[in-house]
């Protein structure tokens, strides 16, 4: 990226949209992405109002709206950029290249696992598990950290939120055994 397009826009910098950064999977597969640095106040306002409506009292908003990254950008790019998630196979392929394996039971999901939300073969959302289901035995659902579109970051139960009707699948990186 040229010096005219800094990764982090400072106050007073011209507003830029549509910038991409270099991003690859562990295996070197390029991941297309885009940053939207421009987020008008009206979008921030609508996002905050919608978030309060979408999530119940169990949820906790932990960060405000941002156009820099979306859900996949949070999980796969450390909040650096937005990653499109049109096809479930693409996202599952990326997770596989990054060393993730499937966790078949929601009850077995652990902190740090990734959850994908899908409908009819389309990946609609992806998030990080921040509390295992066993931590909330009454509900038996994990809590997750989500970022939705340009909206907020929020911690909520996996079965709540705007994507609650989607199918959930869990993944975990397969590192060396702790033992």
């Amino acid at each position, binding site marked *: 990226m040229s010096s005219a397009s800094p990764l982090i826009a400072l106050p007073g910098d011209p507003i830029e949209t549509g910038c991409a950064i270099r991003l690859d999977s562990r295996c070197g597969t390029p991941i297309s992405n*885009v940053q939207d640095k421009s987020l*008008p106040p*009206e*979008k921030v306002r*609508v*996002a905050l*109002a*919608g*978030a309060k*409506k*979408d999530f119940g009292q169990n949820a906790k908003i932990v960060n405000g*709206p941002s156009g820099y990254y*979306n*859900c*996949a950008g949070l999980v796969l790019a450390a909040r650096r950029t937005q990653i*499109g*998630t*049109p096809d479930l196979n693409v996202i599952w392929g990326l997770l596989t290249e990054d060393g993730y394996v499937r966790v078949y039971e929601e009850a077995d999901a652990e902190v740090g696992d990734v959850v994908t939300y899908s*409908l*009819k073969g*389309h*990946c*609609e*959302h*992806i998030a990080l598990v921040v509390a295992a289901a066993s931590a909330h035995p009454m509900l038996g659902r994990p809590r997750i950290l989500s970022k*939705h*579109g*340009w*909206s907020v970051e929020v911690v909520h139960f996996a079965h709540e939120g*705007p*994507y609650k009707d989607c199918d959930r699948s869990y993944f975990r990186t397969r590192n060396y055994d702790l033992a």
Partner: protein
Amino acid sequence: MTWLSQNDVERLGADLAVANSASYIFRRFRADPTVKALALRDGKELLEGIRRSEQAAPPKLEDEVLGYAAAVAALTSGHAPDLTAYIATSSGALKWLPQLIELARQEAGPPVNVVSIGQNQYQFNVSTPANVRVTSTSSGTSRPSSRSEKLVLSD
């Protein structure tokens, strides 16, 4: 263009805010009563709405909401081919537009054309968009006939 009230913009804008994919927008917008009402409008009107939305400078939330609402309305009311043709001149301001069109295409299934001639129905697949035109029809016999009709595929 006052197709949407402030409430519409707030409601649909909140959906846009949490949209991680075109499929979410397609699913939410097509179920919205306001978008359903927009789908009753003329296809040219809807395309004009999309064009104005994309040309708005600076783009506002209401422009973006209107653009996507008009696009989903067009796609759910039989104007997908018009929107597909429009994409060639699109500014790209509505980033989900190509994927919305693809979703509508996938939902419609393989490109199958069905033509009814008298009491007969003719169904065939085409690999590229084509207009099917009947140049002559049978004289109304109730028995299927394979020789009395002539179908012409034209680009």
